[in-house]
């Protein structure tokens, strides 16, 4: 038990949590934007997966940042497909989302087979690149706290810093700019922005585009930092966990951050546990993030319900 505490409160573990939380956070932010605009984006999983593969394949031929941007573009493209079928052709958003997931699950393996010349499992034979970690070891010169700062802040993926900045940027966008007001209005009561001459469907379409881009950015982090390379179904439900994180984060960017950190924490725990306790079966450890998501969702729903009831009672 002591080892567990030692591990959990170490700087290395903190870095692991940030690493595991980053793809989740990016996808959760994507889910949040879509959710606030009134569309439940169940395709986050597929968008992440396509982001993973695009990033890996492009990185073989181009610098890492081009690969990341290509992943974002691929995710946004999927968002545009969703928008087209949902908004123009009036298909149910959930069905469209699952169609995208099915497309991504099959399509990535198909494309991988072509890219690797027959390997259906992994991209191990492709010399794909990684996203560089940001080296902040110069902070070490600060007397006293310097070394600790370096331990905690240095070595994160550049995308982790981008994700942290995006939490702020999305918050600012949603609550401090007119377009954020539009987006929230579209999600809550579309007739109002419609009557004010705001192009409701364009806003929804852009939200899905951005949602796809963010999810795919999370995919890029997954395939170019957390792991380097693509494996079939490598997102392993992270997109769906992100969907849970949107609900758990009370549909707010800061809530999304906290929820993503929570799930990241348990995923990191699943990373370190086998080294500490080899008697715990690997399958059960791999279950942890999913169990935590279900429990968190249930507890959060229960809490929301209770709060609702308490408010009702106190006014009687």
């Amino acid at each position, binding site marked *: 038990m002591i080892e567990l505490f030692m591990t959990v409160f170490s700087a290395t573990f903190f870095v692991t949590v940030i690493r595991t939380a980053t793809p989740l956070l990016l996808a959760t932010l994507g889910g949040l934007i879509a959710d606030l605009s009134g569309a*439940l984006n*169940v395709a986050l999983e597929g968008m992440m997966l396509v982001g993973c593969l695009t990033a890996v394949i492009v990185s073989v031929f181009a610098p890492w940042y081009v690969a990341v941007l290509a992943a974002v573009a691929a995710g946004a493209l999927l968002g545009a*497909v969703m928008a087209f*079928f949902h908004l123009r*052709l*009036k*298909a*149910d958003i*959930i*069905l*469209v989302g*699952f*169609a*995208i997931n*099915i*497309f*991504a*699950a*099959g*399509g990535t*393996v*198909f494309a991988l*087979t*072509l890219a690797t010349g*027959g390997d*259906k499992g992994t991209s191990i034979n492709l010399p794909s690149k990684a996203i560089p970690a940001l080296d902040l070891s110069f902070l070490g010169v600060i007397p006293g706290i310097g070394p600790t700062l370096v331990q905690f802040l240095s070595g994160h993926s550049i995308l982790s810093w981008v994700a942290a900045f995006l939490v702020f940027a999305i918050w600012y966008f949603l609550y401090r700019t007119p377009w954020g007001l539009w987006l929230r209005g579209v999600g809550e009561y579309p007739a109002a922005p419609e009557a004010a001459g705001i192009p409701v469907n364009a806003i929804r379409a852009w939200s899905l585009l951005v949602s796809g881009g963010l999810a795919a950015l999370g995919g890029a982090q997954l395939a170019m930092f957390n792991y380097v390379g693509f494996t079939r179904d490598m997102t*392993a*439900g992270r997109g*769906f*966990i992100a*969907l*849970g994180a949107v*609900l758990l984060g009370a549909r707010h960017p800061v809530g999304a951050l906290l929820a993503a950190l929570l799930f990241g924490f348990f995923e990191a725990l699943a990373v370190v546990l086998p080294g500490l306790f080899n008697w715990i*079966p690997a*399958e*059960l450890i*791999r*279950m942890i993030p*999913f*169990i935590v*998501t*279900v429990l968190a*969702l*249930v507890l*959060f*729903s*229960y809490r*929301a*319900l209770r709060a609702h009831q308490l408010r009702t009672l106190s006014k009687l």
Partner: protein
Amino acid sequence: MSMTTEAVLGRKARWANVRRETGRALAAAFIALGVAFIIILFTSKAPLEAFNVLLTAPISRPRTIGLWIDDVAKLTITGLAFSLVFQARQFSMGVQGQVYVGGLAAAYIALSPIGTTWLGIPLGVLCAMIAGGFYGFLPGIAKAKLGANEIVSSLMLNYIAIELCNYLVRTQLVPPGSGVLTTNDFPATAVFPALVAGTRIDIGLIFAIVAVLAVWFALYRTAWGLKLRLVGHNAQFAEYSGIRSTVIMVSAMTVAGALGGLLGAMFVQGQSYGKLTILFEGGLAFEGILIAIVARSRPLAVPVVALFYGYLRQGAQLMNIRTDVPSEVIGVVTAIIILLVASSFSIPGRKFFARLLSRDATPPAVMEAGK
């Protein structure tokens, strides 16, 4: 207008509707196959051969026909499970998880002493259905009592079930020291007998046919089914009518779960396996979404769609084996079909054909003008 002519018109309208839906589904399938062909054309060294295998291989030999029909039976069950929850307007995505817990339950029965008696099959199927039903009940009750989103919870339960299956197979069901993640073959008494010797067609097909009829009967001939459909159409109205919509919702998800469990038993106890292997389901459960959508959640249409889709699926598998095109290309076809059928896309030139085919067009509905 007299009552009888109106009734005739109503029936005509219904058939026109069926014709239109069928046309749309076929058009969607053609477009999707067209896209697949273009993809194959650009990626394969022998595109024509690949496409030929995709379209003709399943009926080339009795064995492949067996594979196809076996798939159809399974696709029918998952399609029915999704149809049930979709008709109640729930989006539970838990069939995959139910298949695994159902398969586990069936495997435990089959590998126990009971498995060597005549009870092996009925008890295995029953336990699988109970386990699947329970697994379907969980997201239902969480939604009914707590408002927990059923999409997320059912998806999480899928992953949990897969890992649970992996764990139990490795630690309990596999003979010690064997090193493979597959159980011993079930005793013959616990394996579904084949209907056609030498093929995979087994009594799972009969289960599927019975399930189609049972679901159709439950939905259209029982009060429960009418309540379920009313809840699906308008839950508020159902409440106003005195229907307890949460009870209906949970029961629909439980029954769908039992179907998922049955599918699990059909996998592990069927001729195709006759044993429990990890990841035995191979993604088939989710293809029920396509079946249900194209069938418009109508139970009687489900096996028809499954027949077509199963053919395509089998063709893709054979194409994978015999040519250089991976079977995953079928994912693209599936996605396109779902997108087109679920959307308001209409067959190009449909109006023209409609005018050509029927002289008495349905009179335009008198809507509230100017509202």
